[in-house]
């Protein structure tokens, strides 16, 4: 996506720049969260094994940050079309067939994400008084992480369903092959 060329005009151009900004923001925040998780866990090991100080709250904090990191990462991966899919026959379809398949799968995805987001919203409301053990943080905050991710993916999937396949969603070959 970094190397992709912006569409000339219209809604696609606005979407291109909006999604590029959203993706960069998600990448930045996600990477910061990952780094924080790494530092928290390393600090806990050093404090426990070398200094003899227990930091049990770090596990809770790291898990919580991970939920947000997964949320941001999933959203970014959705924009880049990096979510795993099994390509059984789409490469054999004609242009029209591919278009129909694309719109059908994005429509179903949009519906699923919308339902999941709705469920996360309900749970965030129901869990307001349910708190974590060490830090006493409301579970609502955990559901918010999932909620924002699903809402974001539902909106993008809806856009994809309405506009069809667009070039800026393609991932560069280098990125594809460097995944572990």
């Amino acid at each position, binding site marked *: 996506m970094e190397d992709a060329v912006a569409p000339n005009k219209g809604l696609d151009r606005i979407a291109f720049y909006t999604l590029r900004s959203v993706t960069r923001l998600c990448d930045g925040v996600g990477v910061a969260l*990952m780094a924080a998780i790494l530092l928290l866990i390393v600090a806990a090991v050093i404090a426990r094994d070398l200094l003899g100080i227990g930091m049990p709250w770090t596990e809770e904090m790291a898990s919580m940050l991970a939920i947000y990191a997964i949320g941001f990462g999933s959203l970014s991966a959705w924009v880049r079309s990096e979510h795993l899919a099994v390509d059984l026959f789409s490469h054999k379809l004609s242009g029209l067939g591919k278009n129909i398949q694309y719109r059908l799968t994005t429509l179903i995805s949009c519906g699923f994400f919308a339902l999941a987001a709705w469920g996360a919203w309900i749970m965030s409301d129901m869990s307001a008084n349910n708190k974590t053990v060490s830090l006493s943080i409301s579970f609502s905050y955990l559901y918010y992480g999932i909620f924002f991710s699903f809402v974001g993916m539902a909106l993008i999937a809806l856009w994809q369903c309405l506009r069809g396949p667009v070039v800026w969603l393609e991932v560069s070959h280098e990125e594809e092959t460097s*995944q*572990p």
Partner: protein
Amino acid sequence: MTELMIFVGGLLVLMAIGLPVVVAIGVTSFIALVVTGTGGLPVELLPLRMVQTLNNFTLLAIPLFILAANIMNIGSTTTRIFDFATALVGFTKGGLGHANVVASSIFATMSGTAVADAAGLGSIEIKAMKERGYELGYSTGITAASSVIGPILPPSIALVVYGWLANVSIGGLFMAGLVPGILMALLLMGMTILLSASGKVVMPKPTPFDACEVVRTGKRAILPLMMPAIIVGGIWGGFFTPTEAGAIASLYAVILGGLVYRDLNWRDLFNAFRRTLMFSAVILLIIAVSSFYGWILVRMGIPQALAGQVASIDMPTFALLLCFALFFLLIGCFMSVIESILIFTPIVVPAALSAGLDPVHFGIVMVITLSVGVITPPFGTVLFLMVGITRLRYGQVVTAIIPFLLPIIATILLLIAVPGLATWLPDIMGY
């Protein structure tokens, strides 16, 4: 059984029409909930299960080990490992083939996935073998096959997921993977000797053994080589949990690349973190949604029914495990290792346990057989990587891999016949 067919069949159909795996699993779960429920769609159950799953410290091992592998793949770490392996075993006939297997085994003890090995070491190994005059087909075959060792030796991401789902000690599974992983490496090296002796593959003349070169490359690789000792020793010695081992491994990789070798800059580090974020988010989201799928399976009584049926089959455990292995080999051709583990562990583990199989032994067999799928058509991830690296045609890559499937299948058969290969080490280490 009909419900199981609808449940698994529906999922496969949704995946076949091109839906992302996470959406296919989620939609199947919702459909099952509506069909078997008492009316309405309790959508809040999905996020409830997801948060219960993701709010789990053990699963953090997955992004942390992937991060360690991504950082190690930048800079000179992989080259240092391969150079050392070449100096160590490169003097034999087919020496670089052996070096390829040894380097992959060493890298496997740091990365935990086959694709990390093939993507990181693969291009270095194939380039070196090409320069020394090895046939490209042979180089491709051995590189792809040796990457299968990745998900077996600790710290295997697949074993972390299996251990978490089947409620089996992840430390114990790590130890259980050691002997089968080493056995597979030895059998792959044996195949190289066979191919060389039969004259079916023309191997260049080996270079003479040079002890000074072993010492010199050993010195260059000593710090990366310490990582497996830190991971396995730390977990076994009780200094840290598998998740903490992932964090320590990542930090160690950052220190090696950034401060010691100075071939890791801030941009590379950011990209390594970004790739890790993306890949981990995709995998962990599937894991979270799969936990909902697994919960519905249990609610419908499918694993319990299947366990009852399997327990009633009058068949030796060896034959039963062989049937499971054949099933996983077939499934592995179409689905990734992690997806298959997520979907099938809740279904088959209760059945395997009711039939008297050991969960550690069963887990190792399951992970190895599913891992073969990364090098088998039609969807083997490593196959596509090899096409990208070598520029060979897909069919040529598949043909090149065929001889190396024999040692891998032999490892699986030996493992099924001799459970001690997997259970001996965890037993003596007190897991």
